[in-house]
Structure formats: C-alpha cells, structure tokens
C-alpha cells in the first residue's frame, strides 16, 4: 500500500518564497529612499542656515547608485561643494569679503570653524536606521536570525 502526504498550501508557500527576494528588494528600496531623503533634508537645512553663496546647498545631490544584481538598490548622497570637506571637518582662518565690500581677514563665512560633522553624522545615523529597518523587515518576513557582516 502506498503512503503519501498532501501538504495543502505548499505550492503557495513555495511561490511566496520565490517572490520574497523581489518583495524584499522593493521594500528595502523604499527604506533606503526614505532615509537618504531624510538625510538630504537634514544636511540641506544646516547648509542653508550657513548660507553665503549657496554652493553647499546647491551641490548637495541625490543620484542613483549603479549596483549590479537583480535584488540590489542604492542611492548616492553627494556633497559636491569645494568647501564641503572643510565644513564637515573644520577649517582654519579664511578671508572673505561681504556683499558691501567689507573684508574680513579671519574666520570662515559662518563664523568660527570647528568641525560640524553634519554630513558624516547624518549619514551614519541614516545608515544605522536603514540596517535596523531592513533587519526588522527580514525578520518579519520569516527569517529566524539576521547576522550583520
């Protein structure tokens, strides 16, 4: 006598497993987009508060990151101003002239110049949030453990 077992719903489960990478990628894309946009808004606001020529704010851009693979996603947040590095990491005495032609021979245009770290810390925080949310997503979708490497 032949014995057999019928698993009702197994096909549905297998189909769901096959769909999962694409669905995960779709949700991950939204998570990444949300955090990159939030970082952009945060950094842009600080740049705007120290506006002199506006270059810092104008050259803060988001562009698609070219990544290989079907289930990968990425965005690139770039601060392209020539003074972006100095704004983040601090500068020394700098000269500048106001719109009325008054020359200031010390200090940057935004006053004293300790490192602001605005780009570094905002991106670091965003990265932590992205990792946490993706971990939560994967666990919610059935993973029993997630290991960061």
């Amino acid at each position, binding site marked *: 006598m032949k014995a057999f077992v019928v698993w009702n719903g197994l096909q549905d489960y297998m189909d769901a497993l096959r769909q999962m990478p694409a669905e995960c990628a779709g949700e991950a894309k939204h998570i990444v987009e949300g955090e990159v946009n939030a970082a952009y808004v945060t950094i842009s606001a600080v740049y705007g508060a120290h506006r002199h020529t506006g270059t810092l704010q104008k050259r803060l851009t988001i562009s698609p990151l070219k990544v290989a693979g079907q289930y990968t996603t990425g965005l690139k947040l770039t601060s392209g101003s020539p003074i972006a*590095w*100095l704004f983040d*990491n*601090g*500068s*020394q*005495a*700098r*000269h*500048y*002239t106001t719109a009325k032609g008054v*020359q200031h021979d010390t200090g940057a245009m935004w006053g*004293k*110049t*300790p*490192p602001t*770290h605005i780009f*570094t*810390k905002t991106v*670091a*925080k965003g990265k*932590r949030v992205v990792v946490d949310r993706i971990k939560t997503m994967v666990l919610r979708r059935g993973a029993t453990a997630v290991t960061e490497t």
Partner: protein
Amino acid sequence: MVDSSDIDAALTAKLLADTTLMAMATDGVFIDEASPGATKFVIISLADEVDVATFGGRAYEDALYLVKFVALSTAGANVKAAAARIDVLLENGTITVAGYTRMTVHREARLRQTEVDALDPTIRWFHRGGHYRAQFSIT
C-alpha cells in the same frame, strides 16, 4: 557611573603623552578648535556616537572621532610624519579609561585636505588624519 567625556580625555592624553608627536604638533592637542595663533596642532572631534544597549542598559559606546594634524604651510611642519604618528598611536593602541574596557580603536577612513585661502592663495593649511572608530564597553 562612567563619564563618557573620559574617553575624549584619554584620547587627548594618549597623544599629548607622545614626545615624538608633540615635537611636531608644538601647539598641542585640542578638542574641536585650536587656540588663536596656533599653527601646528592636533584636533580631536567627536563626529558621531551611539550607545549600544543590552538588557535595558548601556553595554558599550561606539564613537567615531575625527583626529587630524593641522599645520600652516609656512610653519615648516612634517604633516606626513605627524599623521603617521597619530595612526601608530591610535590604531589598536592601548587606551585606558576608568570604568570602561577598550573593545577597539581603529581607523575607518583616511582624511587629507589642503585648504587654500580664497583671497590670499599663499595662505594654506594642511589637514591630515582620519576617522577613528573607538568602542568602549562599560565594565
């Protein structure tokens, strides 16, 4: 109760205690901003920090420090040697902080920038160093 600022102080003390580095950074080591008139110095600045919790308490502190040697071009400093010395001292260096156990101190990124004055291009400042990850657990 631990004091997180003691980690900043220990990093500063580690660099200040090194005679080789201090021979190059003659104006000293500063947090965030050097004193007026300084032309050869080290800047330490907290770029990012997160406290990692476990079982409802703080398990360890994970900090990213900017540590850089800064020199005015006319000051005659050996920028390369100074940045290299900072790295020797900090990369896996022994740093003792009361109430903490060092987990790691290592560089995550190298930083180098030449700052040219907008009006007087003969005025240049050299910045060289790195972002150092420092993790200390609560003992």
